Structure formats: structure tokens, C-alpha cells
């Protein structure tokens, strides 16, 4: 019975891990596409769960202060005024920060949605390289 429980737990952890792993891959690609030259990208986020995920991304480092960050990953906060590239986790935040957000990634109807805003990318001196170029939007 103990082994069955362990097996079930293992299975549960594995399945969750697979979802996280997919998201982690997307974030890795996003960071790589935005900062192809940087050896280490400093990240700040307002979500504790995502902290664990972002921490695992190769070539990234979580910072405690928004000022030290190269990019902000926002999931909840809607009053960030600091002039740093923002990447959001929902369509609502994307609309909210539409003037300076560089892009967002969120799940809708079970499908992953990724987009970058060209105007704001340019404003921040960033470009999307490689396979993610197709997700760049001219207008919002």
C-alpha cells in the first residue's frame, strides 16, 4: 500500500512537472529570444509560484529589487511604474500595461497564448529573435 501511495505521488508530481516543464520551456525561449547576448538575465516577479519556475531557467537569476532586474514578470500587480521591460501573465494585464508591456504569456481555453508587442519592444530596445518572431504583433 505504501508503495502504491508513493507511486501515485510520483505520478502526480510527474504530471505537474510536465506542465511546469512546458511553461519553463516557453519562458526559456522567451528570454533567449529577447536577450540572446546576455549570459545571465536578471528577473523580478510578483508571483511566488513562478519564482520557483523562473529560478530554474538556465542563464537567469531572480533579483529581489525591480531596479536590478532586466525584465519584470508580472502576474498580479497593476501599479508598476518603473521603466523596465514588462512581460505579463494574463490578457487583462496585457491590456493594462499596453503602453509599455513587451509581451505576455497566458493560458486561454486550455491553449497557450504568447504574444509580443512590436512597438513596446522597440521602445525598450529589444528584438525577438528566431522562432518566436511569428508571435510579434504590430498593434494591440
Amino acid at each position: 500500500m505504501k508503495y502504491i501511495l508513493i507511486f501515485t505521488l510520483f505520478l502526480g508530481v510527474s504530471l505537474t512537472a510536465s506542465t511546469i516543464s512546458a511553461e519553463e520551456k516557453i519562458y526559456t525561449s522567451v528570454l533567449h529570444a529577447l536577450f540572446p547576448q546576455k549570459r545571465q538575465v536578471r528577473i523580478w516577479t510578483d508571483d511566488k509560484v513562478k519564482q520557483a519556475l523562473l529560478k530554474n531557467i538556465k542563464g537567469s537569476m531572480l533579483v529581489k529589487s525591480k531596479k536590478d532586474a532586466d525584465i519584470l514578470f508580472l502576474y498580479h500587480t497593476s501599479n508598476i511604474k518603473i521603466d523596465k521591460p514588462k512581460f505579463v501573465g494574463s490578457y487583462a494585464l496585457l491590456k493594462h500595461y499596453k503602453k509599455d508591456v513587451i509581451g505576455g504569456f497566458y493560458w486561454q481555453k486550455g491553449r497557450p497564448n504568447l504574444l509580443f508587442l512590436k512597438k513596446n519592444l522597440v521602445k525598450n530596445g529589444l528584438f525577438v529573435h528566431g522562432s518566436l518572431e511569428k508571435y510579434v504583433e504590430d498593434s494591440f
Partner: protein
Amino acid sequence: MKFIVKIYLILFVIILLSMFDLYSLIYQTESKLTKNMEDLFVQQAQEITANIAHHLHEHIHKNLYLELKKNPQLRYQIEHSLTTAVTSNYKYVYVLYRDKYGNFRYLLDGSKQDKGEFDEKFSVISPEWDVAYNTKQPTIINQKKVDILSLTFLRPFVLNGKTEAIIAIDFSVNFPKKIKKATEPMREVLIYIFIAIGLLLSLLIYQIIVNYMTKKDSFIDPLTQVYNRHFLRDFLNRMHTDRYQLVMLDIDYFKKINDHYGHDAGDYILKNVAKLIKSLIRNDDILVRFGGEEFLLFVKKDTKNSKHVVDVAQRICSTLEATEFRFNETVIKVTISAGITLHIQHYKTLNDAIKHADNMLYIAKREGRNKVIYSQSNKNLDIKEINDIKEAIENKNIFCEFQAIYEIHTNRIVKYEALVRLYTYDKRVVYPKEFLSTIAHTAVYRDMTKAVLEIVLQIIREKSVYISINLNFSDILDDAIYKMVKDEIEMQSEIAHWLTVELLEYEPLNENRIVKKCLVDLQKYGVKIAIDDFGSGYANYDVFNFIPVDIIKIDASLIRNISNSSLSYSIVKSIASLAQELNIEVIAEFVDSKEILEKLESLNIQYAQGFYLAKPRKEIKQHDNTF
């Protein structure tokens, strides 16, 4: 053991197949239910999307995107009607258009959760969307990449021959999950049973391995590392007697090795002799330590060489003779004697075959040791093999000679003793002493006894003379022989009173009561019972207690010496007197002189038999009845 394992395996396979069958039935049922449910979804989705399309056609006339963009009120109104189609199963109902970049964007969304806004980009993932857009045909997407969805139904909205949008309905995984949940307990039970069977099988395999290891250990003699008697018992039960030949080997003067060099040296010799024998035999051959310094070797038959076993035994003997064993700087030389049974299958029991090999070993020892003996007569006689004897019987190369028995005071022949003989291939006569020991304890012996009995009964029928045949006491105890004798007598019961059964080699037996019963049964047909060699060795008078004796034949050693030994004379006299009192007939054998005959007459012995009176002859002549 193997049989039980087979049963277990068959049982396990049956259970496993049944479980798989059951599991596949559950899976099929689940698949059918899911399929039916999906069909139902598709059917309803078709109707819903058709209604939506109809509704859109009512309000849109030229360009869907532009008209909806201009009219938020219309959007709200249509979205509201879309919302009515949304249930827990029809999770999302929405309409998308494809922009000039090929991206899909929302026009309308009736979904209650994850609602998209007008013109919001939506990643559809699947290429089927483009297919539906281009072909203008409804399409079903099996959503394998999206966890929360099962199917998506797409209906292109075509206006003026151009696809303006796609009406989509996502079917949630709720219903398939419910079906899965309903069958889950059955599946779980099956999985538990699988696990239980797996555990049982593992236990069984473990048990078999443990048994095998234990059995293997218990079958090996720790000193010599060859098989022991425990193995022999097991092996004898399963061996094919026609596939092996048997050698019994015994190290010569082994006791002396123990006495002179000590038991450690004895053990060393045993160990190394066993090792040497093992090196001289094939893997198929089986070496067993039978007792102290005795080994039994089962040699796999060589189809091309029936005497292969003899070659093996001789090789062992010669190699051993040439080998020097060195124990604590002392050189010890040993030899070995071997007794062989060539045809194990000819023996009634394996013990008889081993007994024969043991007898041959005894002869080898008696003849000076370091020898291989496979038949008592193996050196200079033509008939030396059981097969040859068997063939002789089958080819009717067996016959009887009859030695007359005279009534002394009338000088008349009163009866005959039948003596068996065989012909060799060159028609030379072979006497019983040359072949009886070879066929003793074999089925061939029984066949020979039957042949003799048939010959004798035939002569009795033709000539109406009293004839005696010889049987061993052990033959009476042998069910097969006794039954055969009794059946023959029963079939010819009208002439059975002419027959006498002479019993040889009497020794006190535990089964005397059985012997007595058998003999009394024969006497009921008129058959007479005679005891042969009476007075030899021991004064075996107790025979009268157990055997219903009609006739005694006094032992030759007494008769031969009757003229020159007063002791022999006295013994014969006392036997004659006792027999007279017990009303038993007396026959004196080996009467080979007139002097002996006269002595017998003086003792009132009734009957005599011997070369002086008549030699055994092949024919019985009616007129030849006096000496």
C-alpha cells in the same frame, strides 16, 4: 515437482489471459461509451453551430467582421444567445476569424470562463482550423494537446461564398472523465488482481528456485561432489531404462587404504577417484556414490555401439590403474572393479538391474579384482546376452531333455524330470548354468519358464507321463510367474495331475504363508509339490511346517557320499524314515553307480535318478521304462 510447476504455469496463464480479456472488455466498453458520447456531441454540435450560423446570417449581410465591429450591441446580443449553448460539457462556444496574417482572432465568445474579447488573438494550435477555413467543411478536432478538452467542432461560417469565420464548440473532458471514473473501480480491481498474481508468481518462482537449490544440494555427496543415493531414488523414478547402461564400480581393497593411511587418505582417494571417473564420462552420463567406496554409473547408450558401457568401464579401470594418487607425500595406487548391466530394460525392476550389476561386480572381485565383468558367461560362451537368450526362446531354440526317475524295487520308470536347454546359432546345446544367472530377475526368465511349461504339458498330453519341472521359491512369490504357471495349469487342468513342481533354493522366508497358499492352490489341480536338494546345507526340516510337500529329492552331496560316509548314510536314512512317517515320497538324485543304488534300496528309498540309471534324453520312449 515439474508437473506441479506446469500446472501452476498453466493456471497462471489462464488467469492472466482471463484478466487481459476482462481488461480489454472494460477498455472496449469504455471506448464504445466514449465514441457514442462523442457522436452525440458532434450531432448536437452540428445542430448548435448550424443554429448559430443561421442566426448570424439573419443579422449579417456583407462582412461579418466589419458589421460586428461597428455594432457592439449586436455582438452583445449574439454572444448572449451563444451563452445559452454553454453547459458543463459544451465548455466554450465562440466564433473566430482569420486575419491577414493568418492569426485567429475573436469575433464572438459565449464562454462563461476564459472569455475572449473582440479582436483578441487566440492561439488555436491545431492546423485543422486552417483546413476548415479553406475547405469550408465542418471539422472535428480530437484534442490531445489540450488537457481540459476532449473534442472541438468547427463549422465555417460562409457568406457570399467566402469563409468569414469559424464557429467553434469545445467539448470538455468532464463526460469522458465520468465514464473513465465509472470504470475506474473495475480497472483498479483488475490492477490489484494483476499485482496479486504478480506477487504470487514471484513467490512461486522464488519457491521453485529455493526448492531447486535445496534439492540440488541434497542430491550431491559433499565429499565426492557426485550424486548421492537420495538423487538415485529420484532418478530411478524418472529415468528411461532403455536409454542407459549400468556400471557398478567398487574401489579394490579400499578398507586397506583406510587402515594403512588413515581415513583422511581414504577420503582423498574417494574424492579423486570420483573426480577421475567424472573426467572420463560424458555430461549425459550419471555418476552416483552408491555406498562407501561403491559408485553407480549410468552410461547413456551409444546407438552404434551396444558395448559402449564396457569400453567406458575398461577406460576407467585402466586409467585408474595408471594413476598415482599422492597424499601427504605418499603415493597411493588403487584399482577398481566393475560389474555391468547392459540392458536395464530387460529387468523387471531397476533394483534387479542394479542387483545384476552387483553380481557381476562380485564376480569381478572374485576373479582377482581390477576387472570389468558384464555377464557371468561373457568370456567363452556363444550365448551371453539376454537378447540372444530372448531370441533363442522366440525362435523356438529352446527344448527340454527328460531324465527318467525309477521306482527302485520295480526297476520301472515312473516319472521324468524336465531339464531346459538352449541351442546356440551353430546348434550347440547350452545348459542352464550358463544362462540362468544372466536372465534371473528378467522378463526373459518368465518367458523361458512359460516355454518350458508349454513343452512339458504338451509331452504330458501326448504321452501321459509324470514330469516334473523346476521352479524357484522366488518364482512362486513373483506374481507374474505364478499367475502364468497357474493359468497354464488351469487351462490344462485335466492333465495337471501328471505334473510335479520341484522347488529349488529353499530358504526360510517371511512370505511362507503366501507360498503355502499358492502351492496349495496348485495342489488343488492335482499338481505335486517336490522339494529339491533336500538336506543340503542346513537341516531344513522346517520346510514341512510351511510347504505342503508331496515329494522330497535328497541332495546330491548326500547321495554321492552315501557309500563312503557313514554320516551321509545316516542323514539319508533319517530323511527316508522321516518321509515315510510323513507319508512323503523320496527320490534320490545323482545315482551314478550300482553301489549307491543298492544302498538306497537297503534304506527303502522309493525312487532314484541319476546317470547310472539314465542320462537326460530329448525323447521319451514309451517302451524304455526299465534299467
